[in-house]
């Protein structure tokens, strides 16, 4: 296992990038600590897979250096970097048995037969395919095949890191949960450095201690699931994490009050700079008889709670209310100051004296 340093990594798929737009990865400068479980979260096309492939060496970054435990590996091949990677869609060696598929990465590295056997059996047990060991891999179902891919990623214990590129896309929901908790357990037991790419926020938040949110080729926030929820650094993080996403309203800030149209909203603290937007998660929008009057347009009952869609001074907002709570005839909303974040140009503005 190793810590992974991304030293000002930039990547462009264009031969001669002219502007920032040509970069699939604008600039990433970050260290994945040894033994950490990280999730790379972001929408499709934000550069997650590019970053992963740069780490594993399948792709050579156009700029910047990559270090494993302080050793420069920028110019080393994938094999020399000793990385395990699991891909989004199952990759299996058709003509081999399930057992041989798992043994393949070990045998290629000249691991002694007894050790191969021990590791393969252990891994087969873990992915629940022990009974299938002697079967040809060809005839298996898609999720069994993906388990084999996953197993090949986990079978080597001496790797520098294990990278997962949306590995559970083809697996059905129940199995997804089982495999994810197994991965987590594995991480606790062996302390692998794991980087898990996903666009599914639940997956990211349950798997990782640290979630790296990417947007448009750059890292917008790195933090614990809690920090991402409470203090989104960028309005994108607010939108992307949480369901429904954070409400962002244009405001004029004056000291500890924000003005939204003709309404005044009390802020917990004054911003340290100019702020033009107010972000508040639907969880912190209280619907009741007090506060700013709104027009309710729709109420969605999604089981555990209800999502209220309303218009406030011409702006769409969402609020979450309890399953049993009723909405008054003349509804008003009140913003819980604890949940208020201020933004300027989409980036969060620090508050406090």
């Amino acid at each position, binding site marked *: 296992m190793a810590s992974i340093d991304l030293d000002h990594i930039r990547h462009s798929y264009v031969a001669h990038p002219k502007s920032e737009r040509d970069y699939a990865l604008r600039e990433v400068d970050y260290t994945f600590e040894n033994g950490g479980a990280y999730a790379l979260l972001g929408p499709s096309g934000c550069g997650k897979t590019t970053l992963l*492939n740069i780490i*594993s*060496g*399948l792709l050579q970054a156009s700029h910047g250096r990559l270090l494993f435990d302080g050793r420069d590996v920028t110019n080393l*091949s*994938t*094999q020399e970097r000793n*990385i*395990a*990677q699991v*891909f*989004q*869609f199952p*990759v299996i*060696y*058709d*003509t*081999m048995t399930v057992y041989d598929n798992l043994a*393949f*990465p070990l045998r*290629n*590295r000249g691991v002694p037969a007894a050790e191969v056997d021990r590791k393969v059996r252990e891994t087969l047990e873990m992915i629940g395919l022990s009974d299938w060991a002697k079967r040809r891999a*060809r005839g298996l179902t898609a999720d069994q095949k993906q388990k084999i*891919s996953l197993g*090949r*990623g986990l079978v080597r214990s001496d790797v520098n890191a294990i990278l997962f590129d949306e590995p559970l896309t083809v697996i059905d929901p129940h199995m997804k949960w089982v495999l994810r908790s197994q991965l987590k357990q594995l991480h606790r037991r062996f302390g692998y450095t794991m980087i898990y790419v996903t666009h599914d926020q639940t997956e990211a938040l349950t798997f990782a201690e640290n979630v790296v949110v990417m947007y448009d080729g750059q890292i917008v926030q790195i933090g614990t699931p809690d920090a991402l929820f409470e203090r989104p650094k960028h309005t994108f993080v607010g939108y992307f994490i949480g369901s429904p996403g954070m409400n962002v309203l244009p405001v004029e800030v004056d000291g500890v009050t924000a003005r939204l149209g003709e309404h005044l909203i009390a802020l917990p603290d004054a911003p340290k700079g100019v702020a033009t937007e107010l972000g508040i998660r639907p969880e912190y929008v209280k619907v009741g008889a007090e506060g700013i009057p709104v027009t309710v347009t729709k109420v969605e009952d999604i089981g555990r709670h209800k999502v209220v869609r309303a218009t406030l001074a011409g702006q769409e907002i969402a609020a979450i209310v309890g399953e049993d709570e009723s909405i008054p005839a003349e509804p008003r909303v009140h913003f819980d100051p604890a949940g208020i974040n201020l933004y300027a140009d989409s980036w969060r503005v620090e508050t406090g004296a």
Partner: protein
Amino acid sequence: MDKPWNNRAWFMVLPVVVLVAFSAVIPLMTVVNYSVQDTFGNNQFFWAGTEWFEEMLHSERFWQAMGRNLAFSFIILAIEIPLGILIALNMPRSGWGVPVCLVLMALPLLIPWNVVGTIWQVFGRVDIGLLGYAMNRLGIDYNYVNDPFDAWVTVIVMDVWHWTSLVVLLCYAGLVSIPDAYYQAAKIDGASRWSIFRYIQLPKMNRVLLIAVLLRFMDSFMIYTEPFVVTGGGPGNSTTYLSIDLVKMAIGQFDLGPAAAMSIIYFLIVLLLSWVFYTVMTNYGAER
């Protein structure tokens, strides 16, 4: 459930039936007719029964031609298949090289058989041919007109030149259909070049290779035009393959009865081998 039943639908297949009848079934029946009779011309026929078939099956000449043809098919398969795979593996996957390579590969396939034969016939001549002349100037005693071995080499090299492209194109089609993820996974798993070939590329080319073997076997088993143009089946009978022998017998010697019997035996062998290939291929398909 009742299906609509309308006998007029048969009229739809009538053109095909007529076409196949005139192009295949009726000519075949005349061959069957010849094979069981003896004729001396003037439209006089005498019943011969299975006599010609027995004669053919005991004919040394027939079995020698068969042996030569099987050897020829085997040799060209043994060269063209590995060579085709090797070339396909080394062809570029992207960039301007792709169309260039594809066109170069397709060129020999576009040349008519008899022209290929003529090209090599001239190319190999010791007096004016570039190949034959150069070989002899280099001190290599090469003459396809006199030496059976040289004749074989010429015919085989010609076939390899003409048809390896087909194997290349089929293999290339199989190779480009392999998703990048397989190569990436192989890199991650530390697979050697050989392992990538053995466990990823070869299994993915399996089907096209089977088709390539089938096509090349059929074609080489029926080869006529090119060796006929280059060597005329000689020197002696050394490059007289089945179909050349057949034509010699039927048109050269006018032995219509034995020739007809021979073509039926020939036909049955081709049919049997096609069936074997077909069975192997469909079984392979079902296994997937």
